[in-house]
């Protein structure tokens, strides 16, 4: 990444750095590359929003970091640096322990986030119980503390309740509490609000934002909804068809998005200042992994695409110094 402008203090070292990540897999007997050359950094106290359409590889990226890639998918290139240490070089058991102690994860579906057959009190401290001997009373105290932390009302009374006694938003809070049980430095949230209504979405985001500040958490927030993260994300990484198309500081990104795809995404969202303005959509569908075009992968749908776009993969183009786009013909002025 290019040097930050002088206005910002020197950045803290990243908790997690992903460099040139490539994930290969098989689909219907075909070898496919689902994520290619992806790099990003998670810093303490900051939220990185990983944005992209369904199937662009963002969830597989999270799965790769968490060591939860499905059968048949492998990291074939790149590095994952956890506090500067390349964890892909570690023996599997050691990597598993490092992941367990330094990362927590929240997933998409609040209906399946919790085991319906266990009272939530015992589930919330599952990670802690897997790591250490924890007696009944200390476990209950810890569970109550965690539930209070995420804002579950009357936590003490609800420890013995089962997940079906909770609403979707409350379950997602419990899932967040569960992810924080071992006090991880990194929280990976894979579309945690997609299945929730708008008000609950906002509440969950505010909760994540508070936890991130209070605990100096490095948060990776995966979503397909740019407007959702506009208020809280510190950094943005936009993915399209397995590759990064634009990345950088959220403020710079939102004030002047460089990549036509980023603009298109923003153009599909109603603007609060001009709600009657006509929304634009993007023609066509993202390509499937086995038919990625040779040049820029967005070229077939891009209004600015020229001949070079169809043949040459685009190089990184620096914007105003704090963000960059991978594009042959980036926008240069504000929206």
């Amino acid at each position, binding site marked *: 990444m290019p040097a930050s402008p002088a206005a910002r203090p020197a950045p803290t070292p990243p908790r997690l750095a992903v460099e040139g990540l490539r994930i290969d897999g098989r689909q219907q007997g075909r070898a496919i590359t689902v994520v290619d050359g992806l790099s990003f950094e998670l810093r303490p106290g900051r939220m990185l929003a990983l944005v992209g359409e369904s199937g662009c590889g963002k969830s597989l990226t999270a799965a790769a970091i968490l060591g939860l890639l499905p059968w048949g998918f492998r990291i074939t290139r790149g590095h994952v640096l956890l506090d500067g240490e390349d964890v892909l070089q570690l023996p599997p058991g050691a990597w598993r322990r490092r*992941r367990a102690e330094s990362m927590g994860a929240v997933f*998409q579906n609040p209906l399946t986030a919790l*085991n319906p*057959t266990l009272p939530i009190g015992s589930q919330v401290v599952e990670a802690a119980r897997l790591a250490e001997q924890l007696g009944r009373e200390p476990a209950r105290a810890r569970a109550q503390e965690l539930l209070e932390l995420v804002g579950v009302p009357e936590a003490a009374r609800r420890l013995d309740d089962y997940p079906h006694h909770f609403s979707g938003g409350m379950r997602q809070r419990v*899932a967040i509490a569960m992810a924080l049980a*071992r006090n991880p430095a990194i929280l990976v949230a894979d579309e945690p609000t997609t299945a929730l209504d708008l008000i609950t979405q906002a509440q969950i985001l505010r909760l994540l934002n508070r936890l991130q500040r209070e605990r100096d958490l490095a948060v990776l927030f995966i979503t397909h909804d740019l407007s959702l993260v506009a208020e809280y994300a510190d950094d943005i990484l936009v993915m399209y068809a397995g590759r990064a198309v634009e990345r950088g500081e959220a403020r710079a990104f939102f004030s002047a998005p460089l990549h036509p795809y980023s603009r298109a995404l923003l153009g599909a969202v109603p603007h609060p200042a001009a709600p009657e303005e006509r929304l634009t959509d993007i023609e066509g569908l993202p390509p499937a992994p086995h038919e990625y075009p040779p040049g820029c992968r967005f070229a077939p749908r891009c209004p600015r695409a020229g001949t070079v776009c169809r043949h040459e993969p685009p190089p990184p183009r620096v914007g105003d110094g704090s963000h960059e786009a991978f594009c042959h013909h980036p926008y240069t002025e504000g929206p």
Partner: protein
Amino acid sequence: MNEPRSTPERRWGLFPALHAGRFASALRSAPLTAAGLGLFLFLVAFSWLGPLLIHTSPYAIRPALLFRPPSWSHPLGTDDLGRSFLARMMYGGQPSLGVAMLGTVIAVVLGLLYGMSSGLSPSWLDKVLMRTLDAILALPTLVLMIFFAALVRLDALSLILLLGFVSWPGLARIARNEVLAYKQRDYVLAARQFGAGTGYLARTHLLRSMLPIVLVNATFTVADLVLTLAGLSFLGLGIQPPNPSWGGLLGNGSNLAIIGAWWLILFPGLAIVLAILAMNMMGQGILNRLEGR
């Protein structure tokens, strides 16, 4: 992500019910299960507690009392050797119910082990294990058992093992499907992320999640085995005389009913039907709760 096989939310209302203290109220809301359980407990009490009450040997031959129909002094009559048919029915229930229940235990253990291992294996091994299972399922059970019965003299223990070994494949398939349905659930992924090993996942998450459906299929298996065992004994391949079993009594009675001893087929037939009915009612009752009917 592929959505797991449909699991209605309401089915999980069952789980708090499994905790002590709420069992009675859970049964009140599932009358079919309660009735089946009551009937089953009655048959168990009849077979195991009954002999303690009547002090009559099922083996005592009384030449003066042949073919007595049911009366106050001989509640279920006497058989062709003058033996108390009530005592024979009570003692006969022990192998009929006991072998079926213990055989089911073996089938459930084997089925869970095989099915869960298969579901947790890499996909190529899972395929091999499932094709093997298909081959095993293709074997006709009764023919297989007649074959074994011809090889070894069957006593209660060998019948338990035999019935257990022939009934596990169906349970294995169910267990494997349940594992596939649950292993991609977010809470299982979360536990893996916390560093949980496969054994922990299987015990804590998968086994608990599949408990209701395994319970249902176990009750149906008991019903099946009661019938299979009765069939074997009827053919003279099960429990060997003079030891009584319901199937054996029915087989013996079928030759004597034509000379008017109707009670010798009515009571064992009724006992077998009631045992199967009880297990099916229990299983169906739980299934109704699971499917939210």
